């Protein structure tokens, strides 16, 4: 079976804050991926192609460490409520070894992302995404282009020259954003009290949303199961 179901036990811990943090709380979350989200590469049935190595041999290894591979494609951010406008930052999405590094980045709206070419060959970064359509053209090793992302959304970038290269830039509408660690954990501090929507975006599986309430003081604990279990579906 190609698809490996991996059930991860999960604990979500939300720690309540003291009196000190009456106007702000903290979110500690844990994203639980209940099975592999990425459709594993399918090899061509009866014709072996160059560069299309059969994936079946790798799948046992992938089963053992599904989390790392899935969590690296994941980004979370808060949305809604009365969040302060995000402060633009800078990020880098490098082209290295014919791959984008990292695979997923998350930046607040207005940020500038640099696309340095670290390979000794040309790349041509482009995106068709509605959040930002871009085509950086060919540029050689050592050069870089910088793009500013002014609209929130997902920008998936590809290379015209290398069909296997892809990455995604999540342009978040707030500054409360994170990429979960290898265990799926993340935390947002200094979140104003209120009701928000926790948005998780997985490069293969898309958006997952869950309401989260941040109390005046204290810690809100959030557990998000991806994909969303039917029983817990809103």
């Amino acid at each position: 079976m190609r698809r490996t179901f991996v059930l991860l036990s999960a604990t979500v811990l939300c720690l309540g804050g003291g009196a000190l943090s009456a106007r702000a709380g903290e979110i500690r979350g844990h994203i639980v991926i209940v099975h592999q989200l990425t459709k594993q590469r399918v090899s061509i049935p009866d014709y072996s192609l160059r560069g299309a190595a059969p994936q079946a041999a790798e799948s046992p290894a992938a089963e053992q460490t599904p989390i790392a591979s899935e969590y690296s494609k994941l980004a979370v951010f808060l949305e809604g409520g009365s969040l302060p406008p995000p402060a633009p930052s800078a990020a880098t999405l490098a082209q290295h070894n014919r791959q984008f590094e990292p695979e997923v980045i998350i930046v607040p709206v207005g940020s500038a992302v640099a696309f340095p070419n670290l390979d000794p060959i040309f790349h041509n970064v482009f995106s068709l995404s509605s959040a930002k359509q871009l085509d950086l053209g060919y540029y050689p090793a050592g050069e870089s282009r910088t793009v500013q992302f002014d609209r929130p959304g997902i920008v998936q970038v590809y290379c015209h020259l290398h069909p296997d290269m892809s990455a995604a830039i999540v342009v978040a509408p707030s500054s409360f954003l994170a990429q979960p660690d290898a265990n799926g954990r993340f935390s947002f501090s200094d979140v104003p009290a209120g009701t928000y929507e926790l948005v998780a975006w997985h490069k293969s599986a898309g958006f997952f949303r869950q309401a989260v309430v941040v109390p005046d003081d204290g810690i809100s604990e959030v557990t998000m199961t991806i994909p969303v279990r039917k029983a817990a579906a809103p």
Partner: protein
Amino acid sequence: MKKRLSLPTRIFLLAFVSVCLVLGAGFWNLNRAMREKIKDRLKESLQSSEKILDTTASRYRKRSIQMLAVLSENPGLKAALGLLQEVPGDPDASSQVRKTIEATLFQLGRGLEYELILVADSSGRPVAGTLIRSWGTVPLDPLPASIEPSPLIEVQGVLYEASTVPINLGAENLGSLTVAREFDIASWSPTGQAVLLANQKVLRATFPPALLPEIASHLRGECLNATQGCKLTVAGEQYLALPLERPEWQDHYQLFGFQSLDTAMADFTQDFWGLFFWSGLIGTVGALLVAFAGSRSISKPMTDLILRLKTSENSGLLEAAFPTESGVEEVNLLAAALNQAAHAVQESQERLQEASLEFLETMARALDARDRYTAGHSDRVSANSTAIAQALGLPEKEVEIIRIGAKMHDIGKIGIPDAVLQKQGPLTMEEYDLIKLHPEIGKRIMEKVGQFQVYLPIVELHHEDWDGRGYPHGLSGEEVPLGARIVHVADVYDAITSDRAYRKAMPPEQVREIMLRSSGTMFEPVLVETFLSILRKRQTLNNVLEEASAPCYEQPARASSSVR
């Protein structure tokens, strides 16, 4: 009743009929053997053409997949598929993305020989598709609800032969790309028919629809596991059905090629009809000739014998001249036996003839003996006639006939009363008329015996005169056969040189005169001349003999007289 057939006919029929039978049986067997051979060949050709088709198909499929693998590595297509993840549940955005993908597919499909290009997402749901027509490309709308990873797909009622490859992005699968070409069942049956079964149901067929239930039941039945093909009869025509194996179809689909054995047979026999016809015709004519020649060669000596027998049957003479030199030993033996028989018959015939002749001669002598005046008449006439005939140089056979004929010439006098025949003194007119009947009476006596036919003219006509004043018919000149004319001369001569009851024999001078006077009236002049010269010679000889013998007997006397 037993049918009677001549020997040649019998031999001919036997030879001809048997050769024809052998020929016919040969052709029939040949035809049957050919039929089997053709069936085998047909099967082989079907199998090999299936192999070729299969090779072609798998090559096509390989090429398709190669091509597809290249096509699927299209960054634009991948980027467009990625867009779908940005806009879940947004129909407008989705249709926008779909248009983007269609645009990519238009570009991909341009110049390709496929008729359908389809992209599905990673869950197998079709996302966008393009139909490639000869005039251009059109979006596939509506999209099929789902697309099976199947070698044959049905889209908008059209069956396509499809090849599908995954669209991968790194280690991730984004979906699949399917290219398809319309499945044309007719292309699978270049010379015959084809039927495509899906789960043992007829999906497509080149047969008329009315025949399909019958075919399907056959194919589900005896042909289901017949990998070597099976024979079945559809609408009275015999077909060879062969499963055309496609490895990628597994057991889901089954394609059967149908080849009409009858049509193939008809084609073949049409090709060879002329050959069959001509060899049959030549064989028959050859058999006819051989049978004819054979019957002739076998029966010819036999029929020759029979012909000779027939001839001798007609002539009444069985000649010992049957040929014993023919090529058939038995016929030679038969001929030899016949020859022996003929010899025996001839011998006995000759003996019989001799006996008859002796009898007749005896009768003639008895007749002569009735009258002392005519005693020896027949013998003398015979001798003189023979002499004349020999002098004329006639062949021995005719001389012999004249000799015997002359002996019998007066046989008819048996029927003349003694009173007339032995009358002393001259005859009255009536008596003379009676005498005149004797040639015809003699003829009547002798004509009953076949062997005496040759003597009849002499017996009947020896009183006819050269000038036509004779009796019984008054024939003249050469109307009377030579034999009769000769005997006439000898007869008259003997009559006038013999004593009669009423007169003495005439002296030689008078005889000579009478004979000369009658030459040209009674007798043919040449014959008289010949006869007289014979007589002269005889006279001279007599004189010489007398003179020669006289000294012998008289010498002592003469000597004595001379002594005296």
